[in-house]
């Protein structure tokens, strides 16, 4: 068994106001896989991520993290192994300084104080944010906030990293740094994104969601060339896989 395994079996979820979000989603992600979750807005990506992290509980079907189904009694173990990075870093950063925020998770896990300091250093170093340690999070730039938010999750040493739209609001350099950080993370990753270039660079496998169901599941490079599929899912072929408009080469 591996606690890095993530599986969904017949997941269904409907919001309290009746809006259906997921209508029977199944997949299995094994240790070390990087999976992009793509689909138009409203396809159910964010809901699926919240279900994977145990922030929502499925109304039908189940989520497996390692060999545990996600239930109220397994939630503490699930939260230990799944690190969820929210779409808006402002939702995630809560403490007076970045260092306090990065220490928040490990302290909740009961990690001794000396080890917490070490984890904070390592996590900030991983995202290149050592210099931000003493800054108040709400005064950072979008790129800095994103890196800080990532560090708050990395410090918990999760086996599975789950990210919601990690490149939204980033400038090209910030996005480039993010891709480098994501590539360096070798555990299991699930990345929900509209940024198909990012998906192409960081994830070998892609799951296409459409209207709350899995429309396709396969190698990213292959799915991103399937124009009919992308069109149907409200997406379009990434620029790097198109013919060059100037010379007509590529693709």
């Amino acid at each position, binding site marked *: 068994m591996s606690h890095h395994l993530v599986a969904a079996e017949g997941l269904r979820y409907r919001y309290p106001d009746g809006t259906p979000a997921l209508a029977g989603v199944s997949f299995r992600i094994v240790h070390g896989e990087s999976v992009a979750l793509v689909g138009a807005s409203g396809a159910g990506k964010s809901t699926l991520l919240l279900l994977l992290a145990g922030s929502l509980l499925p109304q039908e079907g189940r989520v497996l993290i390692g060999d545990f189904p996600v239930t109220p009694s397994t939630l503490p173990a699930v*939260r230990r192994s799944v690190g969820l990075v929210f779409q808006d870093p402002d*939702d995630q950063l809560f403490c007076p300084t970045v260092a306090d925020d990065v220490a928040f998770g490990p302290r909740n896990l009961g990690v001794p*104080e000396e080890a917490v300091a070490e984890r904070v250093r390592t996590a900030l170093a991983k995202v290149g944010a050592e210099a931000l340690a003493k800054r108040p999070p709400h005064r950072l730039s979008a790129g800095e906030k994103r890196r800080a938010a990532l560090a708050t999750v990395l410090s918990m040493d999760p086996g599975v990293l789950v990210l919601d739209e990690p490149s939204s609001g980033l400038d090209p350099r910030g996005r480039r740094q993010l891709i480098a950080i994501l590539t360096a993370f070798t555990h299991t990753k699930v990345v929900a994104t509209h940024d198909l270039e990012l998906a192409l660079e960081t994830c070998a496998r892609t799951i296409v969601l459409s209207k709350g169901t899995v429309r396709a599941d396969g190698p990213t490079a292959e799915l991103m060339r399937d124009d009919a599929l992308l069109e149907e899912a409200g997406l379009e072929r990434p620029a790097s896989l198109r013919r060059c408009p100037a010379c007509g080469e590529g693709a």
Partner: protein
Amino acid sequence: MSRVGEALAGLDALELRASADGSAQALDARAKVGVTLLFTVAVASFPAGAVSPLLPFVAFPAALAAAGRVPFREVARRLLLALPFVLLVALPAPFLDRTPLPGALPGVTAGWATFVSVLLRFALTASAALALVATTGLIGVAAALGALGVPRPLVTQVVLLSRSLSVLGAEAERMERARDLRSSGRRGRELKRAGSFLGTLLLRSWERAERIHRALLARGFTGSFPAPRPGRMGGREALFVLGWCGAFVLFRLADVPSLLGRLLVGGLG
């Protein structure tokens, strides 16, 4: 910057001072919170019309603010903001209590003494609280309260409140800006629109709070904030606590200004 934004930045500026270098900032939060609480009790314990015995208490907020390099102007501005509410409480006194004060100028009644006393107490306690926040930070104050035995749920409330203020403020600032940009010259602040503005703000902050709560849960939050590194209660803290407690007892038991006055008059005579 919008008005909400300005208020928010002001609040932030006060908090930011807590992470600056200063001898008051370096003191353990528990010592500062404890002494401020005692100060408040001492100031509140005087009889209704006390004025001159209260004056020496100015020393504590003044010293704390000075040691924390908190500018007098910043404290005074915030006192002015709260002044209307205090005036509302204090103003009836001169009309209700018209007993003449023995030995005072004609027209100065016990009611006026109460009025001045209430204002003075407000200025003393509020400036002490502001100096405390500016040298310790709200989170530091909350942690100290927890360490001093205040129940965890209350401490968690203070921490969440301090963070929610900035979250709510930022939300309001964005909405205010969006509204101002589309109110084509008119201020757009009519009363009838205030209702829907506040309603939307409530709903938006509610959703925001839900997302923040989820993010907290995802990082193992179990309902109370983990106690931060315990500070050190050393010699400086002992000196701070004992020194000020001694001073408060002296100020409370002896009427220092009249003693000084008598000394001065006696010396001259």
